[in-house]
């Protein structure tokens, strides 16, 4: 495993600084109902319509845990190559806020459900391992809306009690790029597992970013600041850059860095101190007496292990071995579960005599470009994997040329039409009858006598001219290989 990545350093006159980053990712568990209540978790519902008596903390209401959320957390732990703790404990994290109806959040403090694990990142200069400190289950809070009324804050509790997995990394990340790859990798693993949809726009994935800096080569960690609740990779990267530079400036000015919680202002592109809430946070954690310790058996975990699909790292390895793909190509195909699904379906549909390289080129080239321009995900592709496979086969068996294939593909994008039919209906089939091509070429040579002579005298460049003319005359349908062969003979 190569450790040397292109280093991300912050340079000042005499000094170079390394940035140390750790992430606390909050991933919403994919589940129908909430962690401790039976209300729905759907995104975008009318305010306060997915709130049960438990979520709104009515007197005497009690939490009852959702088994599926427990399974989801364990599966994610397995996906992160982590230790699963057979006994974990739910604690109360006590603080007051308008969108925290209980006055505490049920979380896991000392005994999380998942312990240490690791994630492998594919960086341009090789692989990098990032340690996972822990994963625990906790409740999400509701939403305070401050801008609907000048005097008041409005509270929507729909999200209150939705299950979150907090995935805490070790401080192993060293650059905004690594953070980008790390988040995408986590997202990819969870999407493969079906434990989190990773939708950052909807807030299903957000992170608290811990940043510190230290002189290059130093072993000691600097004082860290925590940037709260950043909800896009771009903002994380911007926040890290700003924050690292701010800290370096303080050091350069001989000032000290306060350990504090900061907010990233996306409009001003800066982090700023969250006005320390009068008193320092003192969450008064203690085991939730409404819940018993959560115990899971070896069998329970084993069954979940057997249920784990092939994950990106394994899939990548297999693609390289089985399909002789480059590491780069394999990475692109496995990074998103839907892409890998599409690709594998194409491979399956291509049948025996398949050209996988060609298929990969077409997926990463034409298909991605087309989806991109239409703003679609691969799961929404207007071209089904089956038709895509047929198209690749048509190229492979010489029915159409690559150039014609592009025309066919454009037609396919506008509706999932069978490429075979398009070729037939539009008469785009490649001309592969040698006699017809011979006749065509004879005609061209006779009407371009001088050029043919020039060619014979050694002006070899003119060969291309004849190929072009032949193609043009055939309406692009002539088999280019045959044109070459026959032209060579005739000239």
């Amino acid at each position, binding site marked *: 495993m190569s450790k040397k990545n292109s280093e991300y350093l912050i340079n000042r006159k005499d000094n170079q600084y390394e940035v140390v980053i750790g992430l606390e990712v909050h991933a919403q568990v994919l*589940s*129908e*109902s909430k962690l401790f*209540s*039976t*209300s*729905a978790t759907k995104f975008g519902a*009318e*305010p*306060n*319509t*997915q*709130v*049960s*008596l*438990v979520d*709104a903390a009515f007197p005497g209401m009690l939490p*009852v*845990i*959702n*088994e*599926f*959320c*427990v399974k989801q957390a364990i599966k994610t732990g397995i996906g992160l190559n982590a230790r699963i703790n057979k006994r974990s*404990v739910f604690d109360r994290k006590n603080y*007051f806020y*308008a969108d925290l109806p209980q006055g505490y959040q049920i979380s896991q403090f000392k005994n999380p459900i998942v312990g240490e694990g690791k994630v492998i990142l594919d960086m341009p200069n090789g692989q990098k391992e990032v340690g996972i400190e822990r994963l625990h289950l906790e409740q999400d809070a509701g939403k*305070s*809306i*401050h801008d*609907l*009324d*000048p*005097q*008041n*804050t*409005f*509270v*929507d*509790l729909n999200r209150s009690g939705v299950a979150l997995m907090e995935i805490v990394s070790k401080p192993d990340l060293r650059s905004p790029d690594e953070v980008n790859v790390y988040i995408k990798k986590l997202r990819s693993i969870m999407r493969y597992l079906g434990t989190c949809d990773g939708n950052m726009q909807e807030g299903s994935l957000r992170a608290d970013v811990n940043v510190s800096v230290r002189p290059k080569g130093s072993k000691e960690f600097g004082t860290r600041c925590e940037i709260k609740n950043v909800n896009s990779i771009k903002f994380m990267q911007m926040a890290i850059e700003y924050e690292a530079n701010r800290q370096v400036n303080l050091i350069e000015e001989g000032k000290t860095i306060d350990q504090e919680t900061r907010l990233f202002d996306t409009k001003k592109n800066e982090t700023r101190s*969250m*006005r320390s809430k*009068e*008193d320092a946070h*003192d969450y*008064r954690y203690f*085991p939730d*007496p409404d*819940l*018993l*310790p*959560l*115990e899971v058996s070896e069998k329970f975990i084993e069954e979940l292990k057997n249920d784990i699909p092939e994950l990106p790292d394994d899939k990548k390895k297999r693609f390289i071995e089985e399909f002789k793909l480059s590491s780069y190509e394999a990475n692109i195909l496995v990074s998103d579960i839907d892409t890998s699904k599409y690709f594998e379906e194409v491979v399956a549909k291509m049948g025996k005599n398949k050209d996988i390289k060609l298929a990969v080129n077409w997926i990463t080239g034409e298909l991605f470009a087309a989806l991109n321009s239409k703003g679609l995900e691969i799961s929404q592709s207007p071209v089904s994997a089956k038709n895509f496979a047929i198209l690749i086969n048509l190229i492979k068996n010489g029915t159409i040329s690559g150039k014609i294939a592009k025309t066919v593909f454009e037609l396919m994008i506008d509706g999932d039409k069978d490429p075979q039919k398009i070729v037939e209906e539009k008469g785009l089939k490649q001309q592969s009858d040698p006699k017809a091509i011979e006749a065509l070429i004879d005609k061209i040579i006779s009407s371009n006598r001088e050029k043919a002579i020039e060619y014979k005298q050694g002006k070899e460049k003119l060969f291309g001219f004849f190929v072009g003319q032949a193609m043009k005359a055939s309406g692009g349908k002539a088999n280019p290989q045959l044109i070459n062969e026959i032209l060579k003979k005739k000239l």
Partner: protein
Amino acid sequence: MSIDLKTIKHISKLARISVDEKRAEKLAGDLNSIFDFIEKLNELKTDNVEPLTSIAETTLKLRSDEVKSKNIREQIIKNSPQDNEDYFVVPKVIE
């Protein structure tokens, strides 16, 4: 063991209960006598004792992932001191 006024003020902030000077003094007195009594526990050596985590000697039961609570917004909001039919309403949060 002595709980001073500063501590009382700190705890009252954490507990979100405002106390004036007079009450703070009374509370400090009460708490000190209560804690004098509680300090009796220090006589007891407990280094090798496992804390009791749950009195019910059983493990957590898990429920299935089903949506049972439907939209009961009207019920949820009905008891609130201030609302606007859709939301709970609280005085502005100052950041």
